[in-house]
């Protein structure tokens, strides 16, 4: 708060006081009061005016400077009212009370949306459990009459299941609550689950699926990681080259700090202009547009889940040659205590 601007703001009041002073001065001169008295009265008058303006200014300066500096310091600016003392001047009090009411109504509004969003998320989770039942029925029915129904049905059911999983993990990755569990897991087992899910596709497209991860154990949520690897492997399967031997290779590299899981394929690769943006929400890029329909959500969800689990994920690729997705798991003995 600047004094100059405050004075400018009080221009009309100062003008009225000044006019009053002129009238008093003229009256004093008309009654022929001696010059000394006039000067004395003038000095006292100016002093009174000045101190009235100054006390008003100081009171306000204290309140507003406190408000401004708090707003600047806070990263959640809407909480500023919690840190403010009630002002000692009337217009400030009015202002404070209005702010308080606005704040309260905004909180209620936000709360309303929070409740709605949570209801929605709960409903989605419930819905996913429900939709899994008919999917399970269909899978079983299909299997029970496998001589009559061909494999393309199974393939389509599997696609439905994958899309349903995508919604489930999207909701989970957006959720502030922690519904994952980090513990030691066998990487080979998780990869085996992914392989079984994609077996028919891999065989159909004649892709060599190679796994070399030994018996390594990593700290992760195995369900989440299975989803993550499945998304990436699905992409590998989707974006293969038409000719030549097709390879998907999962292997690990280890150093003292971390374990890197490489998911390598010799498919069509990603153009260098797109590679930085593949984890962005709804980004589809050149491959997504030209090859097949893509929602641009898969890798976005993958990235969010990795962030939550504390795994680092990077992509390295040369267009037309290869794509290498690397997931890094921290080695942290801290988690192992108690096992």
């Amino acid at each position: 708060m600047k004094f100059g601007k405050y004075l400018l703001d009080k221009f009309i009041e100062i003008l009225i006081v000044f006019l009053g002073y002129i009238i008093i001065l003229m009256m004093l001169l008309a009654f022929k009061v001696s010059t000394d008295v006039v000067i004395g009265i003038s000095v006292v008058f100016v002093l009174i005016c000045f101190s009235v303006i100054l006390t008003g200014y100081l009171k306000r300066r204290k309140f507003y400077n406190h408000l401004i500096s708090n707003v600047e310091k806070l990263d959640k600016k809407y909480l500023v009212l919690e840190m403010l003392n009630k002002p000692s001047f009337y217009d400030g009090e009015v202002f404070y009370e209005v702010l308080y009411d606005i704040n309260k109504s905004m909180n209620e509004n936000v709360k309303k949306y929070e409740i709605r969003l949570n209801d929605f998320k709960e409903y989605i989770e419930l819905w996913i459990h429900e939709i899994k039942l008919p999917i399970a029925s269909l899978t079983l029915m299909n299997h029970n009459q496998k001589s009559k129904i061909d494999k393309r049905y199974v393939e389509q059911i599997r696609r439905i299941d994958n899309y349903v999983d995508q919604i489930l993990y999207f909701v989970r990755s957006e959720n502030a609550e922690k519904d994952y569990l980090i513990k030691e897991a066998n990487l080979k087992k998780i990869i085996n689950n992914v392989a079984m899910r994609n077996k028919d596709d891999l065989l159909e497209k004649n892709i060599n699926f190679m796994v070399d991860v030994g018996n390594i154990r990593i700290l992760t949520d195995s369900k989440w990681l299975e989803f993550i690897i499945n998304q990436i492997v699905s992409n590998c399967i989707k974006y293969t080259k038409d000719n030549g031997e097709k390879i998907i290779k999962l292997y690990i590299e280890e150093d003292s700090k971390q374990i890197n899981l490489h998911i390598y394929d010799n498919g069509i690769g990603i153009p260098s202009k797109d590679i930085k943006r593949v984890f962005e929400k709804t980004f589809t890029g050149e491959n997504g547009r030209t090859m097949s329909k893509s929602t641009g959500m898969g890798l976005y969800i993958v990235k969010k889940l990795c962030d939550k689990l504390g795994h680092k994920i990077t992509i390295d690729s040369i267009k037309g040659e290869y794509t290498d997705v690397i997931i890094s798991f921290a080695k942290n003995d801290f988690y192992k205590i108690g096992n």
Partner: protein
Amino acid sequence: MRTILIIEDDKAIRDELKQLLETSGYKVILLEKFDNTLEDILKNKFDLLLLDINLPNLNGEMLLKEYRKVSNTPVIILTSRVGEADEVLSMSYGADDYITKPYNPTILLLRIANIFKRMENNTNVFSYDDIKVYPSKGLLIKDDKELDLTKNEMIIFTCLLNHRGDIVSRDELMTELWNNEEYVNENALTVNISRLRAKLEDFDVLKAIETRKGQGYKLL
């Protein structure tokens, strides 16, 4: 014959499961009402329980906990809940396995077979006529002659042996191989089977594996 009790409230899944298990040679009991579930379970005699966690008016996990107090019969949990925490909880209440819906039916059958295999507690030796089969060693022994099989060949041979006399489809063999982390392709499967055949011929087991065109293979 092994008996399996299914507790599943979704009728469509229940009936299909029954059909799946019956065609695989198990006897199946179904529970259709869930008022006195625990008592109903205990009234029946069975070797394995397939339990759905989401039951009407009932928490499957609590049911499992109660059941474990009175019985040690193996339990496989079937659920549509996809969460590490649910799995850990179920296992801590004494489930022997945990499978999420929709499951691959072949894998479900494999898991069930595994549990029964563990129960039999045998030393993992099979026999094929007068030949002894040691899957863990990859060895066939006849009198004093030995035949070494690779891991893939052994998986194929034991799978055919377990279904001796029946046709086993290429897809089933493939599932069995992949489930054992051998990610072979169609060509490799063909090669493995012809190698296995050649090895068996050298071992004086003639024409043991029959090819049924478009259907699969059969061990005579």
